[in-house]
Every structure is written in C-alpha cells, then in structure tokens.
C-alpha cells in the first residue's frame, strides 16, 4: 500500500486519457468516477465517459439519465481552497457516435440519414463489433484531441473512460487488430490508426480495478499480460473494497486457532460498561476468526498483486455503501495515495 503524504505529485502527471477497467462486481465505475473527481480536485477539467450505455454515472452522481452530450455533473472538491476543476460526463451511444462521425468526416448529408433509415447503422455496429469499438474509442480520441481541432469546443485536461470489463479490454483497445480482417484500407482504417497511436502513447494509461479475491486478481494478471502484448500502457492497479486493518498478525493467528482470551475480553468490555453475554463474546470471537481468515486470503492476493510490478492503490470498503459523499471520500483517498 503506498503511503504517500497528502501533497505528493500525482503519479500520472501528463496522462490525458485514463482508461479504467475491472472485472464485473469490483467497482470499476465507482473507481472511474472517483478518479475523475480526484483529478478535478487538483484543478483539472475532466470528462468522464461511459461506454456501455448503462447510465452508471448518472446513478453514482445522482443526476437524471445522461443524454449523448457532455454535461457538467459536479464541481470538483477544492482541496487547497483554490480553483477546483469541473467534472463533465458523457454516455457514449454507438449509433449517435456513428452518425456524428459520418457527418464530421464524410459530409454525407442526405445519405447519412438514409443510412440510418435503412438500418445500416444498426447493421454496421452489430455485424462488426470492431466498428462499435472504433466509434467508442474514436469519440474518446476526439475529446482528448479537441483543443487542436476546434477552438469553440470545451477543452479537457483529462478524460476518464469507464471501459468494458477486464476480459474484453485488450480486444476493445486493440481496435486495429479487430478491424484488420474487415477493413484493410479506407478512412475508417486510418481513423483506427490514429486512435491506436493515442492509445499506445504516453498520454494514455489503462488502470485495472480488482478486489482481493482469486478470480478478479487472476483476471487482472491476465489483463496486464494481454495489454502489454498489445503495446498498451498499463497504469495502476486499484485494489477496491478492502477490509479494515484491525488486529496484528499474532492476534489474527490466535483468532484463527481459537486461542484469543475470552476472559480478558470480557474484563475489557465490562470496564467500559458493556454488559457481556456469551452470545456477544462468541460474536466477537467468530468475527475475529472470519476476519483473520479473510485477511489471510487477502494477503495472499496482495502478494500476487505486488508481483505484477505496477503501482497499486487501495480503497477501503465503505460500510454504508457508495453514495455521493462516499465518492468524495474515495476521490480524496486516491489523491492522498497519488493516483489522482
């Protein structure tokens, strides 16, 4: 666990595109949102994109469902009393993106609308998943490079992409490979080339979210291998929903073997006015044993993660669940650990 002081320089200075992936159920959307908030708290104007049409951002930030347009959803927490940046959100819709793309690059006019009417858009995005991915990443590419293209549009210091899950991430980002069999030449191919250049550059990092369980950690390791072989820059691993750190190693050992001293536990409890029952004592001892067993498993997974050779960050599980306040707590924690 990195123990950075509060005002360390962030680890990913200079990164413009943060891609956040993770196995289902590990909280990747929460981490993506916290990262966006954290970056904004350092003064950056951030765009948070979601690629899967699930309206997860709207639910996390407690705002109405997002249309296919950039909306300001929150002003970043101001850590130093100075100017905090804003967080904008965008739910990318593939079909809209294709139409927009056609309008932007091909000036198809009437034919563009006809494509939609004839079901071509649906057809194209369905039959060639690569096309879908090129559109999604293409939209992100456009947001990252916007300042160079257009002077009227909003400029973002960073873009955070809530990306597809770990099992699909390398394929999703390797738009070139996916398209290789389909489009060997032509404009959509050169668009894919541009996107690939950005994704493989120093401006991009792919972060992986995991929890301390066997399968998510395995997927994280596999994901990193796949990303590296695809020349995609791996960022950090965010270990999410960790258990509180209570009890030292000896105490956990005693808890597991059932040798914690119940009598001194009772004495301590009585001293602070807690009336002890056998039920309460067995609760506490059971909880200690389960905690110790879980920690033992978690520490095993921590070791595997440490062996991956990438910076790691840890976020504790919030007992009351994730609400807007919790999101700010996690964002502050990411800042403290230097991820944002």
């Amino acid at each position, binding site marked *: 666990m990195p123990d950075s002081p509060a005002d360390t320089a962030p680890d990913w200075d200079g990164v413009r595109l943060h891609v956040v992936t993770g*196995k*289902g*159920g*590990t909280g990747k959307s929460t981490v993506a949102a916290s990262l966006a908030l954290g970056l904004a708290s350092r003064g950056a104007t951030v765009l948070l994109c979601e690629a*899967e049409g699930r309206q*997860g951002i709207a*639910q996390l930030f407690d705002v109405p469902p997002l249309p296919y347009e950039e909306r300001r959803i929150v002003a970043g927490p101001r850590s130093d009393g100075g100017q905090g940046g804003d967080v904008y959100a965008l739910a990318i819709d593939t079909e809209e993106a294709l139409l927009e793309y056609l309008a932007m690059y*091909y000036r*198809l006019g009437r*034919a563009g609308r*006809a*494509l939609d009417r*004839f*079901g071509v858009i*649906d*057809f194209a995005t*369905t*039959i*060639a*998943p690569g096309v879908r991915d090129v559109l999604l990443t293409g939209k992100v590419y456009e947001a990252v490079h916007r300042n160079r293209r257009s002077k009227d549009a909003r400029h973002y210091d960073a873009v955070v992409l809530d990306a597809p*899950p770990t*099992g699909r991430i390398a394929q999703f980002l390797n738009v070139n490979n*996916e398209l290789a*069999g*389909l*489009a*060997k030449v*032509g*404009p*959509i*191919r050169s668009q894919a080339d541009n996107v690939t250049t950005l994704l493989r550059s120093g401006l991009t990092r792919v972060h992986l979210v995991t929890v301390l369980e066997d*399968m998510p950690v395995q997927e994280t390791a596999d994901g990193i291998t796949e990303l590296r072989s695809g020349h995609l820059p791996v960022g950090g691993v965010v270990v999410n929903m960790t258990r509180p750190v*209570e*009890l030292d190693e000896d*105490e956990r050992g005693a808890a597991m073997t059932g040798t*914690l*001293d119940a009598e001194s*536990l009772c004495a*301590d*409890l009585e*001293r602070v*006015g*807690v009336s002890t*029952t*056998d*039920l*309460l004592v*067995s*609760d*506490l001892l*059971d*909880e*200690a044993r389960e*905690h110790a*067993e879980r920690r033992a*498993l978690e520490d095993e997974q921590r070791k595997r993660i440490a062996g991956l050779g990438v910076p790691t960050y840890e976020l504790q*599980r919030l*007992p*009351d*669940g994730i609400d807007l306040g919790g999101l700010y707590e996690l964002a502050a924690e990411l800042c403290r650990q230097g991820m944002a």
Partner: protein
Amino acid sequence: MTKAGTRTGVRTGARTGTRKSGRVGPLVAQPVGAPDLDVDALLADPDTRIIVCCGSGGVGKTTTSAALALRAAEQGRKVVVLTIDPARRLAQSMGIEKLDNTPRPVPGLAPSDDATAGSLDAMMLDMKRTFDDVVESQASPEKAQQILQNPFYVALSSSFAGTQEYMAMEKLGQLHADARATGRWDLIVVDTPPSRSALDFLDSPERLSSFLDGRFIRLLLAPAKGPARLMTAGLNVITGALTKILGASVLRDVQTFVAALDTLFGGFRQRAQRTYQLLQAPGTAFVVVAAPEPDALREAAYFVERLSEEQMPLAGLVVNRASRAPRGALSPDQATAAAERLEEQESSAGDGAPTAGLTAGLLRLHADRGRIVARETRLRKRFSTAHPDVATAVVPALSTDVHDLDGLRRVGDLLAAHAGPAA
C-alpha cells in the same frame, strides 16, 4: 438474562414479534418479509427439468449453479451443468478446464445417505464452436465452409455482443434435445454469461433474429424484387456511401456473408423461438442470483419483472455474499463508543489492560459488520417490499474461496439451510 434465555429470546423475538425486555438488536437475520426459497424441494421435484441461474456480472452465478447441480446430483438426480466462465481452479476440480464443448462426468460425487446415486456431468461453453456447429448442421458442406471463412462471420461469431448469450441458449436447446432422446440427464442447470445486464440473456435470441430480419439485410439480399425496387435509388446512395467509408472490398465481403447467412436464416429463427418456448415451459425454473448491492439487486428486480411479463417460471432469488448478522445485541454505535472509551482509558490513565487494543479492534470489527448487515438488510427489504412474493435464499459470505467440490457442497448446504447462523 441467562445464556439460553438470550438465545431463545432473540429467535422467538424475531419470529413472532413479541419482544422480551431489553434490546433484541436492530439487525434482523434473515429474509425480510420474503418467503424462504426451498432449494431442496426445487431440486427434488422431478418436474424440474431445467434450472437457469441468471443475474448481473460478479454475483456468483457460476458458483451457485455448480453448487445446485452438485447438490441435485448427490440427491439422486442425473444432472448436467453448463457453465460459462468458471474460475480456473473450480473448472479444474470439476474436470472441465478443457474447452471441448462436450459434457464430461465430474468425479468425486458423494451421494447423500438416503439417495440412490445420481450423476453429474459438466461442461464449459465454447461460444465460437457452438456457432460453427450450428452453421455446419444447417448448411451444405461447401456453403458452411464459405461462411466459416468469411471475415464478418469470424467477427460476429467471436465477439458479437449477445453471441455468448445466444449460444448459451442454443447449447441449452441441444442439451435438452439430447436429454430427451437419450435419457442421460433429467436435470439441466445453466449458468448465464457474465453480462452487465441480466436481461441480455433473454433478449439475445430476439436481438439476433431481428438483426437477421433487418431491413438492410433484406435489401442486400433482394435489392430488385417487389416493393424494394422503389428503394433501389436509395440503395445506390447507400452502397455509394458505404463504399466511400469502408471501401469496396468490405462491402463485397458483407454481401457474400449475408447471402450465405440467408441459407441459415429460417433455421436460426426457428431455433431461437423453440428455445424461448422451452424457457416458458413449466419444467423450467429461473433462479435469479444477486449480491446485496444496489446494482445487483436492481438488475434482479428488472429480471423478476421481466420473467413475470414473459410468463416464465421464477423459482426465487438467491442473495449471495450476505454478511452474517451478529446474534448478540451490541449495536454498531455502542460498539464504536465502547472501542473509543477503551482507547481513551488506555492513553489517558496508562492503566489500560494489555488486551485493550485487541478488544477495541474486535469492537470496531463488530461495528463495521453491524453497519454492513444493516445496509444489506435495508437493500433486501427494499427488494422484498416491491416483490413480496419472490421466495428468497440468503447465502452468507464464505471467508474462503470456493474452488473444489467440498466448497460447492458447503455452498449447497447454505443454499438449502439458509437460515442457519453459522457455517
């Protein structure tokens, strides 16, 4: 209060609503208001022929379906379980780490005492292979070859959003036909793909057939027939535009692919419809799996509503990874306060007991657990208030990973006896 008195006091208090003097504790242990899901009755019922486990990603569907299948087999059923993406170690222990798309017997069954021996076969879905099999069974060898080599088919069969769901259904149809013909199995347990939304599974056949039914596909197939002729001018604009974007060779590939697919067209639709009907048949039971998290329970609610809309038989809801409720009466706030007092005493007077730090730690763990249980209870209550008839089984979180048959047995026990306070 005596020890025994406390125990019965908590139990009867929770069941009958009569409260003994003193606090009983705010944390109700088991499904809030919802009837219990009787897992053993479901598994024992010979009319249960298919169990579909569905739910959003990461809630433990694979483990639940494997545990149900193992339990049924050890109680005498002849079971086949179709898993989608099991953890490596679990797959190894079930002998299915090899993806060969064929059910294999699982070794190491331990039939329960009063049951005649059943059997358990397991398989892992190979999406592409299943799709290829469909193509090969529907088309002539030359045509099949032509389709299998088309770049668009390769893309569609390996990564079309929904292909995995559709192929899981396809495989289910095959297993069902096989079971009927050979009598090899009398229960099929199906795990569903790890999609974002649980509904994807039900939507996939419709999505694939409406895609195949699409206007553009029909245009590509018969641009000059009937009323479509009127649109030919429009079509020229479109093919022109597509050529501009994709290049002419891509368009040619698309056209060959679609023409080839046309052969399979009728077969695809029919099969999708048959499988859908199979899911509506009385022998099918849906088990919706969730974790006590807002997203997972929201998906579960959508799914439950959808099942009733489609008149598909719902057996119940399984809530995995529930935190075990403390049995004692110390609330989270009281525990936190006590922990603080202990630490205060120790630091101010310096006369704290040597174990004070440990005890404070235990109290804080207790408080943390209590808060999580309260939150999970609230979430489950919200679900059961909206869906009071859905039978529910709550499975406490295990403190170890499940990666062998013993682990699955333990999950099976918890599923069947979900009111038990300890594993």
